[in-house]
Each structure stands twice: as C-alpha cells, then as structure tokens.
C-alpha cells in the first residue's frame, strides 16, 4: 500500500510551506515535493502606483530583509530617473546591505538552525528551539541575539528604524550619515567580529558530527549563480553575474544583470506558487542553479578583506570543485557575516561616507528600470515598467528563494531517501527533511509574490510512469 507523509507546516523558516513525501508499496521514498502554500500578489498590487513609492512598498514584501527589496527597488528606480547616483549614496547603500547581511544571517544561523546543529537533529522537538539553545549553551544564544541586534541597530542608525525604513529613495538615500552615528556604529563592530570568529571556530569543530547530513543535504551537482566584482571578488550591491558549474569552472562571467532575461528563464509547476528559475542556455530543468551564501562562495575568486579571505581559503579546501552540499550554506553564512563586519569597518573609516552629496534629483527619464542586488538569500531582481506619467504598469520580481526552488526540491528527495523509511518513522527523520530546507534559509513570503496568468504545465502520470495526459498554458 502506498503511503503519503505530509509535514505541515514546516517550522523555523520564513513563511508557510509544506512537504509531501510519496512512499511506494515497500515503504521506500518514491518522490517528494516542496509546496509553498501562500500567495502575496505584489506584482499586481503595485500597478497604477507612482514609481517613487516602490522602494517602500516593495520593502513590505518581507520584514526580515526589507533592506534587500529597498535596494533592488531603489536601483530599478535610479534607472527610471536615468541618473548616476553619488558615490557616497552607493557607499551608504552598500553599508546598509552589509548590516542586513549580519542581522539576517544571524537570525538564520542562531535562531533557526543552531538548535539543530547544537542539540542534534534527533533531540526533543520541544527543546529544539532558541530557548533550548539558551539552556544548553547560553553563550551561543547570547551571541546570536547580540549579533542580530548589532545588525539591526546599524540599520536603525542609518535609516531611522529597523523594519521597513524609508531611507532608500530613487536617486540615492534621503539622509546623510552623521559623525556621531558613524562613531556609534564603529564602536559596535569589534564585538560583532569577536562573535563571528568565535562561532566560526565552533562550527568548524562540529562539522564532524554532521557527516551524514553533509553527504545528503541537497548534495548534488548544479550551477551556482551570483554577483561578482570586475575582479571576481565578493559583491553585494553592484557587480556582474557569474555562473559556475559543479567543477567550479566558469560557465559565464561578467554578464550584465540588467539583461537577466537573456539568460534566466522561469518555469512554473501546478503544485506550488513558487516559480522555478533556470539558466536558459541549459534549459529546464537541467539549468538548475543555486544562489545565496554557498553559491557566492563558490563563484568568487576571493574576498577583499583579510579575515574573510583567510576563512574562504580554508572553506575552499573542503572539496576540489565547487562545494556541493547545501549543509555548507551555514558555514558560508558565517564567513559572510565576518566579511560584512570587516567591510563595514572599511567603509566607515573612509571620510567620504560622511558627504552630504547623497541624492541625484531627476524626473522620469526612462520607462523601464531593472535593479539587481545580492540579498542574504541570493540574487534579487526588480524589474519595472512605467507609463509616461511615472505610474507603474508592470513589475517582475525574481527572489532568491525562487532561484533555489529546484535545488530545494531535489534536496528534499535526497534527504528523504536517505533518512525516511515508511516502515518505522520517527521525528528526527522528518526534522532532517525540514532542516535541509532551513539550510537554504528560504524566504517564502518574499518569493510567492506573483499573481495573474501564470503559465502552467500539468502532467498526469500513471502508476507505471507513463504520461497519460498533458496540459500547457503559456
């Protein structure tokens, strides 16, 4: 008798999702799906609004990383104005993004995933949370809360508030940085750096305990995609797109992110609201790629800050080609936190950061704008079209979690096949299935923004695997 296991809701992720695992007659895993069960509709509801509202409106997509949406949206609006924004505005926006990397990665690592990592995948689910973590290792829980607080405080100092600040505007930012605020931010960074280094040491030591997870957590060859500087180094604000394969060979480099439609396609499936982006030259589903911390660390030639660079070199030693196990997303996240802290120090010590030239003023000069930035979870694309009065006519958003959709689905199947056995189920098995999703730190509320006429491809497959019927709506 076939049996179906449903995990709903998936806990300790952002947003709502469920997982279905299909077992065959012998109780072995036959297939698995990752469903995103909510719909937001931002691409539709922005229609008819003035573009100048977009950064703040789009930031409402998410309360965890509003900064990413502010930046991608702000950059798309810069294009509508057809301006080159002042250098200081770029520096301030970059600083803003780095602060968000620290807070968002800290949330993912300490609050959501550390309970699995420290207490173990099979530990009592009642204790497997941030409170259980605080009991077992108070220092680590404190570190996590403190690190996130530092990131959030920097965001607040820059932009006025922590969640949904309206500081990023078309053409730059609305307020300059004061000396007092700069000094305050600088004074917080040494502690943040200590926490990052301490956690990295602990994580590296504990990697041995997770051999099985490393082997099975979405550990498969795929492409990796993200932004790099012209020199091929880590980048989160400007930069160009690089794609590498599982051997870390560069498939494409220095692609213009504005031309994303030339190389990124989007497919949909009937069982989820989340779209499936793929690298066009390789088709769907072979063009599956991963984005986010692991992808960024796989595509780059290095960091431009000393401590992160050193850690990255050590990280690279894990495998000869690209690092393929998604379990290492956690590791990559910690290295990125360290880099963000170093980079913020560098930016703040540059006197140019205090300049009052922070905004280019212009009217509407282009009817189409595309903004691309790296969000903590991966590359983020905002694409707008407006009418001649500056009112929104069309928007397309491609969100990090969307890029990882295929990888997550593959990862679930892999981990389910290894750990789940229909004859004797236990909670720890199912937690591992959830944990593979957590490794990607998906932000589902962000990524299910689409509404309207989605192209749909429905396949009806019989028990013997033959295709019985097929429907397609493009």
């Amino acid at each position, binding site marked *: 008798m076939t049996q179906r296991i449903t995990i709903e809701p998936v806990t300790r992720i952002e947003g709502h999702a469920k997982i279905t695992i299909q077992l065959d007659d012998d109780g072995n895993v036959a297939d698995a799906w990752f469903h995103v069960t909510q719909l937001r509709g931002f691409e539709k509801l922005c229609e*008819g609004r*003035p573009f*100048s*509202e977009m*950064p703040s409106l789009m930031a*409402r997509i998410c309360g965890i990383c509003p900064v990413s949406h502010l930046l991608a949206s702000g950059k798309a609006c810069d294009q509508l104005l057809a301006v080159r924004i002042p250098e200081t505005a770029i520096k301030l926006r970059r600083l803003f993004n780095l602060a968000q990397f620290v807070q968002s990665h800290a949330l993912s690592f300490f609050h959501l995933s550390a309970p699995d990592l420290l207490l173990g995948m099979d530990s009592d689910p009642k204790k497997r949370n941030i409170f259980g973590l605080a009991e077992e290792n108070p220092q680590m829980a404190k570190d996590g809360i403190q690190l996130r607080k530092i990131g959030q405080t920097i965001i607040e100092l820059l932009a006025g508030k922590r969640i949904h600040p309206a500081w990023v505007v078309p053409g730059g930012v609305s307020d300059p940085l004061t000396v007092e605020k700069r000094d305050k931010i600088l004074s917080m960074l040494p502690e943040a750096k200590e926490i990052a280094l301490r956690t990295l040491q602990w994580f590296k030591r504990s990697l041995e305990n997770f051999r099985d997870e490393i082997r099975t957590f979405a550990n498969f060859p795929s492409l990796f995609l993200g932004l790099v500087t012209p020199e091929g180094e880590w980048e989160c604000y400007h930069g160009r797109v690089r794609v590498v394969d599982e051997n870390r060979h560069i498939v494409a480099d220095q692609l213009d992110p504005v031309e994303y439609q030339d190389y990124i396609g989007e497919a949909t499936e009937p069982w989820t609201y989340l779209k499936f982006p793929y690298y066009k030259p390789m088709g769907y589903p072979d063009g599956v790629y991963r984005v986010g911390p692991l992808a960024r660390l796989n595509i780059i030639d290095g960091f431009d800050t000393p401590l992160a660079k050193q850690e990255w070199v050590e990280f690279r030693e894990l495998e000869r080609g690209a690092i393929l196990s998604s379990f290492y997303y956690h590791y990559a996240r910690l290295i990125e936190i360290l880099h963000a802290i170093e980079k913020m120090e560098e930016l703040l010590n540059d006197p140019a950061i205090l300049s009052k030239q922070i905004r280019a003023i212009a009217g509407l000069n282009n009817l189409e704008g595309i903004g691309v930035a790296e969000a903590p979870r991966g590359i983020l694309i905002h694409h707008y079209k407006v009418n001649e*009065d500056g009112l929104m006519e069309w928007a397309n958003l491609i969100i990090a979690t969307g890029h990882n959709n295929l990888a997550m689905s593959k990862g679930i199947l892999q981990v389910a096949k290894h750990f789940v056995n229909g004859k004797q189920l236990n909670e720890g098995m199912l937690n591992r299935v959830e944990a593979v999703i957590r490794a990607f730190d998906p932000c589902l509320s962000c990524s299910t923004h689409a509404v309207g006429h989605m192209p749909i491809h429905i396949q009806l497959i019989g028990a013997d695997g033959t295709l019985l019927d097929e429907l397609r709506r493009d």
Partner: protein
Amino acid sequence: MRAPIRIKTLTIDGKEVSAREGETILQVARENGIDIPTLCYLEGLEPYGACRLCLVEVKGINRLLPACITQVEEGMEVITNSERLVKYRKMILELLFSERNHTCSVCVVNGHCELQRLAQKLGVTNIRYPYRYPNLPIDATHDRFVVDHNRCVLCTRCVRVCDQIEGAHVWDVMGRGINSRIIADLNQPWGTSDVCTSCGKCVHVCPTGALFEKGKAVAEMEKRRQFLPYLTVMRGGKQ
C-alpha cells in the same frame, strides 16, 4: 458710523468666555485654548462643515452642531468633549479610513498626515467597518504634482484655496455621496487644465497624501501652509 461690536457671553466646557457676535464656536474655543479636533477646517479658508469632526453638544439642542460653522449665541452652554462626542468622532474617522485606501505605511505623507494624527490622538486603534477598497485612479498628468484619489477625504480644502485664494477654481467636486470625487476643470486630466497656475497651494493645504509633489518617496512629503494667513490678510482679511 460703524455699528457697535456686540459681545456675547457663553460657557465652553464650563468655562465662561466672551465673544464677538458672528464668531463661530470653534474660533472662540481656540481663542480660549480649548481644543476641538478639525479636518476640513483650515484657518484662512471659508469654513465648509464637511467632516463633522468638530461636532459639539449645546445644552437645549438635541442634535450635535459643527463648531466650525455654528455662530455663538448669548448664554450658550457648549460641551466640546464628552464620551458621546469622542464616540462619534472616532466613528467618523473610521468611516473615512474604510471608505478609500489609506495605507499609511506606504503613503507619501506617512508621519506628516492630519488624518493619521487625528486617529492617533483620538485613539483609533482599529477600523470596525469593512474596508470598501474602491478601485480609484491616480492622476499624474501634471508636470509637478500628483492627485491620488485613494487618499482623498473630500475636505474640499483644495477646492476652496484654488477658488478663494488663487482665484483659478481648477478643482471642484463631482458626483454625490459615496461617489463624490474631486475633479480638475471639467473632469479632465489635471495636466490638461488651462487655468491651473501650478502654484501648489492645493497640494500644501491638503491634509492627507491625496495631493503631493511628484517624485516624493514614502514619508517624504511635508505640507507647508505658512503662506495662507499672509495671503488671507493681503486679500483684505476676507475669509
């Protein structure tokens, strides 16, 4: 010979006050430091009595009276603040919020809005009526300004300032009741108006984000109204 000024005496919230004949309850209350909430009223423009937020109780009269257009009378006993008044004022604000799409968080005047400030002051924490979510357009055809009907409360300040101060009378109200809408000239795109002088007075007297300067991002639009009393004086003190 000038007619002698007649003085009326009355009480507001138990306080004995005197006023000139022809003054409104609102004027006398404000002269005496008694606050009555208003939305459509703006000093310098003729009062209109539309929003009903300034409703007060007058002893001996069963219905509530709008303070902005009710003239004082000898021996009046006015109550400006009671449980009943607060109840009705909150109700009025909630109805305004439910009628159109006032999404403060993504509004250009977030933090500088009179409607928002009144709601905070009167303790409106939730809207008990179902939202109507009307599908209203935005007119961004003007070079410098935008009108967003989603945020309009039909206070007609824009209509009055354009007519009484600027003398252009671009704005007016069309339709009745729930279908009322502010229109430019003969219900045409603002940018095509021949008589609009682009002075921006309507934008700055507007209490909400219904009228704003083009290109302003969320929470960036601040209204400056210091010009109004001077212009009123220059026009001979006529209100």
